[in-house]
């Protein structure tokens, strides 16, 4: 079983490659969109590379759900994620730091849930489950 550091190193390499970032920019806490400049197209590229590198299968929307907090799904009211919404986010993004997000639960901050650390935890869990 790979250690956290080993998985992190491989993910740093994938992200540096996919996003044209320097490996030292790809710190554990870096956010994919805010810090590393990822766009929606890059998510697909990242998923392909994670599957190939770690020999795992990632279902559509499993890692990067589409239309999170889309209008009318009851996740947020006036641009702020509700308690119920937070519970849904915990369910859909079990490896994201929802507690930190809850301090300022604006819809526009949802993209910050996708961090390097989250990817490492996601991959580690997938490998442990043998998927």
């Amino acid at each position, binding site marked *: 079983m790979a250690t956290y550091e080993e998985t992190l190193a491989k993910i740093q390499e994938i992200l540096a*490659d*996919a996003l044209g970032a320097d490996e030292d920019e790809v710190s554990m806490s870096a956010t994919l969109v805010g810090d590393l400049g990822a766009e929606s*197209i*890059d998510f*697909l*590229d990242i*998923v*392909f590379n994670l*599957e*190939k590198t770690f020999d795992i299968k990632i279902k*559509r929307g499993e890692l990067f759900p589409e239309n999170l907090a889309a209008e009318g799904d009851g996740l947020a009211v006036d641009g702020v994620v509700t308690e119920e919404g937070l519970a849904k986010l915990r369910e859909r993004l079990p490896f994201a730091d929802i507690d930190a997000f809850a301090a300022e639960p604006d819809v526009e901050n949802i993209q910050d849930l996708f961090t390097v650390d989250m990817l490492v935890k996601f991959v580690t869990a997938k490998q442990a489950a043998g998927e």
Partner: protein
Amino acid sequence: MRWIWIDRFEELVKGVSARAIKNVTLTEDHLHDHFPGFPVMPASLMLEGMAQTGGILLGDLHDFEHIVILAKVPKVTFHSWAVPGDSLAYDAQLLDHRPEGGTVAVKASVGERLVAEAEIVFVHLDQNDPKLGSIDQKNFVFSMKLMGVMEVGRAGSGTESAAGSKCEGT
């Protein structure tokens, strides 16, 4: 001008590989400006032809059910160039695919000479997708017009055609 950057689709192994040909000719106006006195096929258009070859390979896998859009070119290297008279062969291999899209690796070569190689990511979009309207159609890898290149080979090589029998007759 028709946005077709391959002349003939030569081979398709479903879900595995595809090969198309692009013949470079001085009839193409842009070669007179790119560059005056040194006509070479623009790298961007070569990449477009590579994407069209790979896009058809991916589209065929799902029987052209989705619109295939060129999303990203994570890697591309141009090793050489192609000049009028060259026949560029684009060889595409399907690297990966999933419901949202796919990736291909494509090599462009003139004879034995490797001219370019690229990795290209495509996304799938469906006709009824609300995002469709906001996308420039130029990003579509193929339209039904482009699909015409798959019919080109059906005209045959010309050697066994009526032209031959006419010659015999005269």
